[in-house]
């Protein structure tokens, strides 16, 4: 079925939907002003908190103070640097990859029964490596110095989707994430080309099975629909022809390999141009389409700013500018997160945190370390509806209100409770006990809030404690009545001991509807 592009509205230019009565009016900025930089005078503590909550996981007071002192341009340059910090490959993943060639050889020489045993062993090791890398990523991301970079990496991996569930190889997943991170602040076309070569993507979107005489269209379709252009900005024929250019892309033992005899070198006609295009040529061609400028910004809005569509006249202006910057991702981040539109009152404190952000914000707000307990931590994320490296489908996570239902909200509340109660070590299995011991030796052993934490509040008045909670935990400025409610509870909330009242107030505030927002 061919659909002419003109018959569809592009996702990137959705018609404005009438806002619900409870929503702040959409921004009144003109399209020309929307993307200009916020004036330095307007970058106050509240604006800094908004920026930090949206581009990292939380807004810690010292980070807020630093941002205000540095000013917006310097802060953005620091949050989105030219060179991302690399994440070291976790040991279990490394070992898995080292053993791969030898394993492949053993598999070749095995009889059917041995093959099954070997494959099972490989799956188990991969599963353990997957857990290891998930925990290591959470630990890495929870460091304030990496937070913006890793949230950006998460954003891009929500576009360039792969899933551990389908490819079952932790090494491939790790390398895919590493490729995204490496190219996260460079030109987008280079990122797209790198992703077309990751073993994870080659397997996830079936390039592995795409043959010269039987091209598989899966990758070509998602390349146009989800990675570069958005739905409706290409024809079915463009996909069929483009698929031929990606034939011969293979992975062997976790490395990209190009198999010439499986590649179709004949001329292809894509977006009205005809030549013997390669895969890279197709990606360059896609970026020459007008929709390429607005597609990624459209996704950026959805991931960082709002579930509601922007007024339709805003994105094209940004898209044209971004195309002229050779699609530089770092330039886009600086422009977007420095813009008047981003700081508009319409977008303050009303975005629902993803489970990953909820968890990492909790650890930061409570000054905790990520516990190396895969079962508990990853289990909790799963209950809240987000399993790392496993989005529900190729579209990635829908987000927004989709995150919240009675079960997932219950899981969020339960996680808060968990972080305020001692770990029941008798219930840990032997592997977990080993991990805990190792973390303690490493000085990373603040897994739950204990009396030590609460002592910090001993010298404060109820008003001071309330302010500290409300300003750090909750987005936006709290209404006076809300503030009074918290202060009153801290003054005489059912317990004689201030630390007990502090503990109870903190738990309730972290479970409150407002804390789910950023």
């Amino acid at each position, binding site marked *: 079925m061919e659909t002419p592009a003109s018959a569809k509205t592009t996702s990137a230019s959705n018609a404005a939907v009438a806002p619900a009565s*409870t929503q702040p009016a959409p921004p009144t900025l003109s399209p020309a002003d929307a993307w200009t930089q916020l004036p330095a005078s307007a970058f106050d503590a509240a604006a800094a908190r908004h920026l930090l909550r949206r581009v990292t996981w939380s807004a810690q007071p010292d980070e807020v103070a630093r941002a205000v002192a540095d000013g917006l341009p310097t802060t953005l340059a620091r949050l989105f640097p030219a060179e991302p910090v690399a994440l070291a490959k976790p040991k279990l993943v490394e070992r898995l990859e080292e053993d791969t060639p030898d394993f492949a050889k053993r598999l070749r020489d095995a009889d059917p029964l041995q093959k099954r045993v070997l494959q099972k062993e490989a799956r*188990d090791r991969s599963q353990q490596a997957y857990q290891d890398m998930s925990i290591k990523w959470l630990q890495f991301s929870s460091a304030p110095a990496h937070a913006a970079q890793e949230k950006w990496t998460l954003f891009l991996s929500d576009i360039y989707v792969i899933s551990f569930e389908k490819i079952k190889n932790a090494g491939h997943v790790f390398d895919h994430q590493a490729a995204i991170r490496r190219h996260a602040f460079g030109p987008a076309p280079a990122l797209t080309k790198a992703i077309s070569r990751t073993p994870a993507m080659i397997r996830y979107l079936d390039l592995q099975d795409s043959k010269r005489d039987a091209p598989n269209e899966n990758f070509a379709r998602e390349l146009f629909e989800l990675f570069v252009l958005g739905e409706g900005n290409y024809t079915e024929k463009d996909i069929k022809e483009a698929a031929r250019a990606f034939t011969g892309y293979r992975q062997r033992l976790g490395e990209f390999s190009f198999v010439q005899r499986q590649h179709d070198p004949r001329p292809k006609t894509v977006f009205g141009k005809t030549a013997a295009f390669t895969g890279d040529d197709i990606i360059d061609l896609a970026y020459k389409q007008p929709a390429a400028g607005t597609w990624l910004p459209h996704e950026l809005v959805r991931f960082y700013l709002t579930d509601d569509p922007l007024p339709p006249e805003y994105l094209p202006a940004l898209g044209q500018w971004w195309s002229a910057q050779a699609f530089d991702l770092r330039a886009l981040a600086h422009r977007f997160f420095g813009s008047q539109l981003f700081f508009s009152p319409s977008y303050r404190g009303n975005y629902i945190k993803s489970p990953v952000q909820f968890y990492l914000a909790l650890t930061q707000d409570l000054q905790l370390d990520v516990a190396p307990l895969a079962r508990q931590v990853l289990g909790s994320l*799963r209950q809240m509806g987000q399993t790392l490296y496993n989005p529900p489908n190729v579209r990635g996570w829908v987000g927004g209100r989709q995150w919240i239902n009675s*079960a997932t909200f219950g899981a969020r509340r339960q996680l808060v409770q968990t972080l305020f109660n001692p770990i029941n070590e*008798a219930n840990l299995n032997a592997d977990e006990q080993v991990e805990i011991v190792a973390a303690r030796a490493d000085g990373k052993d603040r897994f739950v809030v204990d009396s030590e934490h609460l002592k910090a509040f001993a010298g404060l008045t109820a008003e001071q404690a309330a302010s500290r909670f409300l300003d750090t935990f909750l987005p936006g400025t*709290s209404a006076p*009545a809300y503030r009074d*409610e918290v202060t009153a*509870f801290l003054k005489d909330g059912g317990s004689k001991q201030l630390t007990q009242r502090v503990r109870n*107030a903190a738990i309730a505030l972290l479970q409150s509807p407002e804390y789910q927002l950023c």
Partner: protein
Amino acid sequence: MNNSPHFLPTTRREFLRFSGSGIGLLAFSNFAPSFLVQSTLAATPRPEKDRSILVLVQLAGGNDGLNTVIPFEDANYYRLRPTIGIAKDQALRLSDTLGLHPACTAMHELFKGGKLGVIQNVGYPNPNRSHFRSTEIWESGSDSNQILSSGWIGRFLDNTCSGTPVADNDPTAIHLSGEVPQTFLADQAHQTFGLNPNTIGRRENKQNMEFLERLVHQPSADHDEHGNNSFLKQTMMDALVTEKRVQKVLGGYQPASTYPGNPFAQSLKSVAALIAAGLSTRVYFVSLGGFDTHANQANLHQNLMKTLSDGLAAFQKDLEAHKLDDQVTTMTFSEFGRRPMENESKGTDHGTAAPLFVMGSKIKGGLHGTAPDLNLARNQDLTYTTDFRQVYATMLDRWFSCPTDQILGKSYQPLGFI
């Protein structure tokens, strides 16, 4: 909003009383609490009070099956377990060849009364020895090489509880564990509810709820509230309403048997209270941890067995006294059994198959399935003879009268315990 109530109505009548007195409970929200949308009194028990209920008891960490159900006539057992094997004269007789762990005296009584079934040697092909993964397999009901994101109970809820309005706001499933069990995860959203066994009935828990209620009634920011905030408040109100009802039920419950003081038994007492209150909840999940007995197992396992046995027996006795026993079947499960051969630390390492228990007045007690073959070499594992999904299929088909294929993905031979 000055005179707004600091508590949520849990019945329609209360709600109308507030609204009538001009208190705008909904002033800040586009939504009413769900249960008010249906015109039902929250406290009215549903007509289908006689529906079957399943209580799942997780033994987390991998329960040692061979020391739970002891093959005291098999020389291999004592060969494999020279120090931790349990002597023939200690075991509580189940048959001429099998006995229960000596700490399970209360369960032994249930067995003799025909209310306890032992399903022997339960496992699955290509067993996985990772706690995490094997728990996932059991809770999702998947094959060993298949990853399912939903749980078998979640799919049961999808199948039977979808599209029916939850008129009385009862959760479809309730867990009393620190985490939401994977077995509840479903493709559709269901109202499930969790109680932390460590905080049930604690004063601070009550304070926490009361304070949350007060917060939910306060507009949090000066400007108009965004739709997302209203939506979150709405979801939270529903949860608090449920929680209040649950706490009310638990607080006013008079058990008819004496429950031990440990969190596990207290969790079962809470389950009995909720069942007695006529909640329409179909599935309860309770967890007992600490079964990962790699070293010095004897004492640890003894205590665990006693906790399990006394807790289950108190629960069953309580149900019977309240005449609720016909409605309830209880079933234990654990992610794996342990290796038949003991290790160098007087403990056992991760294994494969193990027995599980079913308990209730409606089940067929006694021994089901076949005992494991212990003619094994060093460190060799048991080979399962009953697939755990046969147990699930029996529950779904004969207890819940619900088609099993869609939930389990294929057909499994049911067993004779129901």
